[in-house]
């Protein structure tokens, strides 16, 4: 779905990513690599395929948009070092010309140890590009003159209808001052947000992205 923020054209993809054509940049948030491995280490049998499936989906997005840069607004890794980090390093080798930028999130603890092999640029609190300021949590805002794009929340929207209908979807949220990106990983829950009238919401369904702004 093509739309715009403050005059800047953006593309919202149903695979939970945002692409800004003028910056040739693909943006995702909350990848949570290693989450399923982390759960398995704690004794909870979560399928191992999830991490690979998420990386595969990211690969498809990169093939589709051919960006120069990939920005991840935080929580790229879920917890501590596990084999999914190796999976990422192997995957990364498939895109040697792609610049990857990470704005650190609260989950990105392992980076001190493995940072050198990952070949990504890491920023502690924010990263500016074009008219946007990319952060992990919206409250970390240091750049007040730019439009803030953040993650962390894993936003979802709930649509209610007559006859007790209820549908819940992950969504993109665009408020007047900042945006919330959906969690890229499918192994995440949803935090339902209740927007104001001026806010724009785009629900992500398996079929396509729907504009559900009121």
């Amino acid at each position, binding site marked *: 779905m093509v739309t715009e923020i403050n005059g800047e054209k953006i593309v919202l993809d149903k695979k939970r990513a945002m692409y800004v054509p003028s910056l040739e940049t693909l943006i995702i948030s909350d990848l949570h690599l290693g989450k399923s491995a982390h759960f398995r280490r704690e*004794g*909870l*049998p*979560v*399928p191992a*395929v*999830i991490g690979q*499936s998420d990386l595969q989906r990211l690969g498809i997005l990169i093939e589709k948009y051919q960006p120069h840069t990939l920005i991840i607004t935080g929580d790229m890794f879920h917890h501590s070092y596990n084999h999914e980090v190796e999976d990422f390093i192997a995957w990364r080798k498939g895109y040697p010309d792609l610049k990857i930028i990470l704005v650190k999130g609260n989950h990105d603890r392992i980076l001190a140890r493995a940072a050198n092999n990952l070949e990504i640029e890491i920023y502690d609190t924010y990263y500016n590009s074009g008219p946007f300021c990319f952060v992990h949590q*919206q409250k970390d805002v240091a750049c007040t003159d730019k439009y803030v794009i953040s993650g962390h*929340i894993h*936003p979802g929207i709930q*649509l*209610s*209808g*007559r*006859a*007790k*209908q*209820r*549908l819940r979807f992950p969504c993109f*949220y665009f*408020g007047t001052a900042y945006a*919330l990106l959906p969690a890229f990983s*499918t*192994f*995440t*829950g*949803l*935090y*339902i*947000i*209740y*927007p*104001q*009238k001026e*806010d724009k919401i785009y*629900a992500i*369904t*398996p*079929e*396509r992205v*729907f504009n*559900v702004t*009121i």
Partner: protein
Amino acid sequence: HLFAYPFEGRLVHEIMAALVAYRISRLMPITFSIAMNDYGFELLSDQEIPMDDAIVYDVFSPDNLTKDIIASINSTEMARRKFRDIACISGLVFQGYPGKYVKSKHIQSSSGLFFDVFSDFDKSNLLLRQAYDETFHYQLEEPRLLNALQRIQNSNIVIKYINTYSPFSFPIKVDSLRESMSSEELGQRIERMKAEVYKDVEQNNGYRNKRRKNRP
């Protein structure tokens, strides 16, 4: 609203309601919310529910029972509800310590996430299969359902069109434990619901937010 009173008990009604809803949903794209108690069940939709003397005997027919039951269970969320208990017992989801239990809503969403993840990535997962098995066998009482449908088939089915709620309907209507089932295309449902939300917001000047803390 469609209310039916077979008087077969809640467990049979749960399956029968899903079955009837499924069969009606094959006639046209429609979305249902389903509720039941020991007397009968309700199908609620935002569209007119087709029901008349011509189709009622087909919809309540014992023919093709097993196939239709399997299809109707898969279209509702019965297995997902069953999975909640399985997730807690198997240790996938932590309920909290006695005296400080985790809120059940949190368990619902966690177990729902596991259910989705297993359904997408590990269909042969034993816990997932257990949820479906339990829905089929434990609750199903298929012979009893078959007897009930045969009895109904040989009886006189009375259809009444009324404008208000009847006395028997009220306890079913207010039941909060509901199933839902839809044969509509998702895009269509979203467009309709959007239009209603728009109307609601216009009247109330904003979303009616029951939990203020969720404002972004």
